[in-house]
């Protein structure tokens, strides 16, 4: 290899050149740059001073909020409720264990080359929910029982979203395969399922699950509101997921199906080893998009009386002891959601890069 010794002309390098090219390349770009700069400077200052400089971080009770800025004391005072809901104080370590396990399983997914990353991910999808199934409600292994009516806050949001995400992916995959099946009865059932669930707003589904489902169930069979909401969310989400995955299946060229057939791979091996790995990879952005919207949609459980993190915050900002703390509460909720949704988004980008084998079929 011979390295070229010619350097680009000075004019195209350095910050001045960059600014000239990107910010001041013509008179109207210059104008826009100045205008946007003005808006940023005038609005960012007050925002930052409300958020940080004039805000009250330390103290106890409403009296300590004296500054003109945000009253973060409110959030820190009520943090326990925002995270655990009515979960008994002396049992909250169980939730903490789950938070730690969640972090152990998924934070390494963002660190390239972390040892055992794959196994931690698999644990996160199998062992973690299993542990949670026994740990959070209790009632076995000598753990005190905590009924789901006492769950709430961020913990409830995460439970709803996590189980919804985990269950809707495989169910959605099966529905998508069913919808493309050659067998008319299976195809018909899947089409009806998808079209019915997808055409109904989640609020209706939740309402049906909490109010109407018990009417249809036989006498004596009854499971608590949270389970019913979870089933509703999962089935509703599966219908969406099925359509996203079907898009991926349709993008796989017919030659791939034929090559798998010609090699004698039966239907399930063909799908599991050849078609789905490619199809799912293609629709990662769509799948994550669906996950993110599910994560935010869990806030709707408020209408059937479950207190997720938004519900928990909303119920406390009306507390007459505190005044004008609504903004603080909502900013906190927005921040919680943003952290998780942004995390999912980043992870999907990592995954796409990692799975790229440089092919164009």
């Amino acid at each position: 290899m011979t390295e070229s010794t010619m350097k680009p002309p000075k004019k195209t390098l350095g910050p001045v050149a960059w600014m000239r090219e990107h910010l001041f390349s013509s008179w109207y770009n210059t104008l826009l740059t100045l205008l946007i700069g003005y808006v940023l400077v005038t609005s960012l200052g007050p925002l930052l001073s409300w958020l940080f400089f004039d805000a009250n971080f330390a103290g106890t009770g409403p009296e300590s909020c004296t500054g003109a800025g945000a009253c973060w004391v409110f959030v820190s005072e009520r943090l326990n409720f925002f995270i655990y809901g009515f979960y008994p104080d002396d049992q909250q370590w169980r939730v903490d264990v789950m938070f730690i396990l969640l972090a152990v399983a998924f934070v390494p997914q963002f660190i390239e080359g972390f040892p055992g990353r794959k196994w931690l991910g698999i644990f996160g999808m199998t062992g973690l929910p299993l542990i949670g199934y026994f740990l959070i409600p209790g009632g076995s292994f000598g753990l005190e029982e905590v009924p789901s009516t006492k769950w709430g806050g961020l913990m409830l949001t995460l439970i709803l979203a996590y189980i919804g995400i985990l269950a809707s992916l495989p169910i959605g995959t099966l529905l998508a395969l069913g919808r493309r099946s050659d067998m008319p009865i299976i195809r018909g059932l899947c089409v009806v399922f998808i079209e019915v669930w997808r055409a109904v707003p989640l609020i209706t589904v939740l309402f049906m699950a909490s109010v109407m489902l018990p009417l249809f169930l036989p006498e004596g069979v009854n499971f608590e509101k949270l389970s019913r909401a979870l089933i509703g969310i999962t089935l509703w989400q599966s219908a969406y997921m099925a359509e996203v995955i079907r898009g991926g299946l349709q993008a796989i060229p017919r030659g791939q199906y034929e090559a798998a057939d010609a090699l004698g791979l039966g239907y399930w091996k063909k799908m599991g080893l050849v078609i789905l790995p490619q199809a799912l990879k293609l629709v990662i952005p769509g799948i994550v998009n669906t996950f993110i919207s599910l994560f935010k949609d869990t806030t709707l459980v408020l209408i059937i009386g479950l207190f997720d993190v938004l519900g928990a915050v909303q119920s406390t900002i009306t507390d007459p002891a505190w005044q004008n703390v609504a903004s603080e509460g909502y900013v906190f909720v927005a921040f919680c959601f943003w952290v998780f949704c942004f995390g999912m988004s980043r992870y999907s980008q990592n995954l796409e890069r990692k799975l790229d084998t440089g092919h164009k079929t």
Partner: protein
Amino acid sequence: MGNPMTEQSQTPETVSSPQGVAGDSSPIIKVEGMHKWYGDFHVLRDLNLDVKQGERIVICGPSGSGKSTFIRCINRLEEHQQGKIIVDNVELTDDIRQIDTVRREVGMVFQHFNLFPHLTVLENCCLSPMWVRKIPRKEAEATAMEYLERVKIPDQAHKFPGQLSGGQQQRVAIARALCMKPKIMLFDEPTSALDPEMIKEVLDVMIELAGSGMTMLCVTHEMGFAKTVADRVIFMDAGEIVEEAPPHEFFTNPQEPRTQKFLKQILQH
């Protein structure tokens, strides 16, 4: 029906060419009065063909003559509606088990390679032996490397198909089919999607394979290949087998006017 699932090995070396085979040995592929329609369109009309073990057959004809459809019927990538296809003593019917049995014994090479882009070359070759034939990974990999050696690309084993040239991909596709140790190989225009300089490397592999006694059915426009390796050349037009002859006769003394016209067109240059 016989027992097609007995432990089988590579095509026996003793069967060299059909001329040496006694006339009473049963054909490995038998097609009888086969018809196929796409909707109302009659694509294949009354096809009859017997292929003996070790025989090399080249099928040619103008585009749209049904030659690809015909060989795709032999491993049931396409369904025929009338007549019989018997491959290695197994008749192709709607029964999925019969179809899978036949597909295990029939390798296929496609015009567009159809390698699995998410798997490396080696994984492409091992997939079916491991999952269909239940061969342990180590053994499957050893066999795969053997065949990759035979198609002269063992050094690409750990690359992805997307990193290979067309000719290399097609050779991997041939190796992948061979890894299942099939009794029959079908080639569906294997060189049609390749640049001219890559056609030769693929044809060389196919000629080498023909020399090893593999039963081959090959749809191709490579008349040079037909002359060198074919035992019989079949000319199809409008869904019918128009003429069937050994290559020497086929190219020097075609009987049917349609064959004469076709040969005149393709051999002009």
